[in-house]
Structure formats: structure tokens, C-alpha cells
């Protein structure tokens, strides 16, 4: 057999394996779907808000619930010392997005 046939056959085999793996095996199977649905039901039932990925500090355990000043939350100019803290992204909210939600005062500030 000539080398080109062997190489093309190998490439075709690889491409087929790639397509089957990424196309067919991707997406959830019945078991996966069941597990995901059960997890979503658990979230709904207990009112959970965060993934239990980093349990070191309260702002890494519940990043979505942490207060807005978590960088210096322990005392003024407290330095971050939890490993995960350095990997938690800063809040990426648009500027003044919460302006409409800010407290309304009747007297001037």
C-alpha cells in the first residue's frame, strides 16, 4: 500500500473519531440530564446561590453574595491572603449599573 493511502486513511480515521467524540458523546445523556435536573431542584429547594468550589473564605464560598468591598473586608487595607481570592475575578458590572437601585434620600446628602 502506498504511504499516501495509509496517511490519508489514518487522518480520516482520526477525523471520524474526533467527529464522533465531539458530536455524539457531547451533550447530556439520560443519566446526566437526570443529575442536572436533580441538582437544579436542590438549588431551587434550598435556595442555593453558589457552587461549593472554594470554601476558604465567605467571599470565595459565596462570591455572588459577598459584600461589595470584599478586598479589604477584614480590616481597612487588609491584604488578601486566601489562595482562591487571587483567582476570583473583580466584579465586572458596568459603571453605575446599580444607580437606579441606590438608596433614595429625601434630604440632600
Amino acid at each position, binding site marked *: 500500500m*502506498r504511504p499516501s493511502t495509509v496517511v490519508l486513511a489514518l*487522518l480520516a480515521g*482520526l477525523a471520524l473519531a474526533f467527529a464522533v467524540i465531539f458530536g455524539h458523546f457531547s451533550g447530556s445523556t439520560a443519566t446526566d440530564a437526570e443529575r442536572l435536573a436533580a441538582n437544579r431542584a*436542590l438549588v431551587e429547594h434550598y435556595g442555593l446561590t453558589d*457552587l*461549593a468550589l472554594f470554601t476558604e473564605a465567605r467571599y470565595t464560598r459565596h462570591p455572588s453574595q459577598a459584600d461589595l*468591598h470584599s478586598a479589604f473586608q477584614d480590616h481597612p487595607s487588609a491584604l488578601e491572603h486566601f489562595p482562591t481570592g487571587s*483567582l476570583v475575578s473583580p466584579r*465586572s458590572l458596568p459603571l453605575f449599573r446599580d444607580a437606579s*437601585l441606590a438608596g433614595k434620600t429625601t434630604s440632600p446628602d
Partner: protein
Amino acid sequence: MHPWLEKQLHLIDFTLASLARRKTKNVGLLLAYTLIVFVLASLSLFTHALRSEASYVLAGSPEVILQRMVAGRHDLIPPGYLERIGRIRGVQKKEGRLWGYYYDPVVNANYTFMARPASEVADGTIMVGSALARERGLAPNNTISFRSYAGKLFGFTVAAVLSPDSELLSADLVLLSENDFRRFFEYPEGHYTDIALSVANPQEVRTVAAKLSTALPDSRPILREEVLRTYQSLFDWREGIVLTVLAGAILAFAILAWEKASGLSAEERREIGILKAIGWETGDIIRMKVWEGLIISLTAFLLGGIAAYVHVFHFGAAVFAPVLKGWSVLYPRFTLVPAVDGLQIATLFFFTVVPYTAAVLVPIWRAAITDPDAVMRA
């Protein structure tokens, strides 16, 4: 066989023979190339799967959570606060929640304690997440005691261990009755940690949040969409950090590939000269080199992609997991549902296969249009 096809097969035969002459160099390049594709594909598959799982399960979290802020920090909801919310149109249900953190010095880990109604968890019993149960060696009907922050010892019977399938969400969770929660943390009667509100119409959530801020200026409403966005940006950020760390390696490979693809060795140059001298056309030489670029880059892309899939969805992305998942004492064990984004694969293909194949062309074209005599003498 069609003459065009026959010609291509001959060109491939020739390309393979030429590649085989510089076997070590080309195998090395193929390995480095495959490794880079593997790393990039693993990273993007893992973060995409984690992101989709987070957004799917957290879509069930409360629509609005209301926290009370004192001096910019989260504070307890005092008695009467719930009533002050009054009847806001669109709010279906409002419920004071009790939850907090407990540091367990036995395993140096933090747990999340959450109160549940007595109908779910009886006084004196707890339900625990399976990572916690594993770490403390707990099984249903075992007893465990925790020393409260006030220094008192409280004993609990484990009523149930939460399903290991939910570890991603409940690894460190301890569910106990409201009475136990208040006694354990000495929580003042009538106070709550925060308030969960359910809003029937998603269109009204923002209006409800605005009304809440007006009615309770010291409150901070957290919307479900913000929770979801937090996780999207969290994993984007982590993917970015890993990419930054890998940038040096990626750049080194880019230089290697560019050098290999765009600079011709004297031997290759002589080969082109000989081919031209014996009658090969410029087009044939370019076609041969395109085949060379395609064979190397396509093999690397397919091998790297398949290896990345197996690494992420069968071996739990062992290489990147600590950085992308985080690290802690109570580490949840979970398998991700394979979620593949076609656009991601296409982008990876475009940035790995196309540049290499294209980089091969320019120097070859330059050498191929020069006089064979000059090329061979150079």
C-alpha cells in the same frame, strides 16, 4: 482514478518521503504542536463545561435575595423588616433565611450551615453534604458534635447524607432545624440572615428590586441574573489567568512553528531547486508544501483535541483542576457533563491549523519562483 486525485496522491507520497528524511525534527514538531492543542482545547472544554453546568443549575436560585447593609457590610435582617417590604406587586413569596459559616478546627475547613423547616430536618439532627461526610467519616445515624462560637458543645445525629451527585453545590452544606440553628449560633430571635423573594414574571424582577431599594434604602438586592453573571465572569477570568500563565509556552511554540514553517533549511532549498530543475512547476511545489503543512497541523489538531476531551471528561481535567476549580479542604468530587461549543472548536481549528499551513507558503513561493540554479548554489 481521476488524474487530479492521482497527482495529489503522488504529491502526498513525495511529501511523506521528504518528511521522513527529517524524521526527528518533524516528530518533535508534531509532539509540541499536539501538546499545545491539547492544553488549549482542555482549557476551553473544561471552562465551557463548568460554565454551562453552573448556569444551568444556578438558574434555579432565588430571583431576588435581599441583604441588609450596615456601613457597607452584610448585616442581620432585624424583626419587622420583612413586614416593611409590604405587598410589592409581582412578589409571589418572601421568606427570611438563616444561614452562616462554621469553622471546624478538626479538619480545618469551613462549613455552610443552613436552617430548614422542622418538617424537613428535626431538632437534634442534621443533613450533611457528602464531601463533609467523607472528610469527617460520617454515615446516617452517626453522631457528631460541634463546638459553637460561644464555646458550648452541641451533638447532632446525621439524619441523611446528601447525594454525592450534588457535591458541586452541597459539598460543605450542613442542614439543621431553625431552633438548632438559633441555639447553636445564639442568633437573636426574629432576626434573619437575608430574605429570598420569588418573582413570578422575570420582566418584573428589576422593577421589584428598584421598589425594594426605595422602600428599604439600607438594603442590597442581589438578582439571579447577577449570580449567573458572577459565575460567567469568574470562569472567564480563571481561563484568562491560565492562558496568561501559558502565554510564554504558547509564544515559544508559535516561534518554533513559525521558524520551522517560514524559514527554509539549506537542504529544503536545495530540494526545491532540484525539483524545479527536473521539471516540477511552482504550483506543484507549493501544493506539496501545503500538503506537508496540512498533514502536520491536522494530525496535531485531531490528536490534541481527542486527548483533551478524554483528559477533561474522563480524567477530570487533572492538569488544570486546581486552578480552575479552586482549592480547599472540602474539595467536591464531580464529573462534568460534556458540553462542547462548536464555535470554540472552530476557533481553535482556525488558530492552530490555518496559520501553520499559511506560514509554510510564503518562503516556498519565494524559493520556488527563483531560478533553480541560483537556489541550488545558495
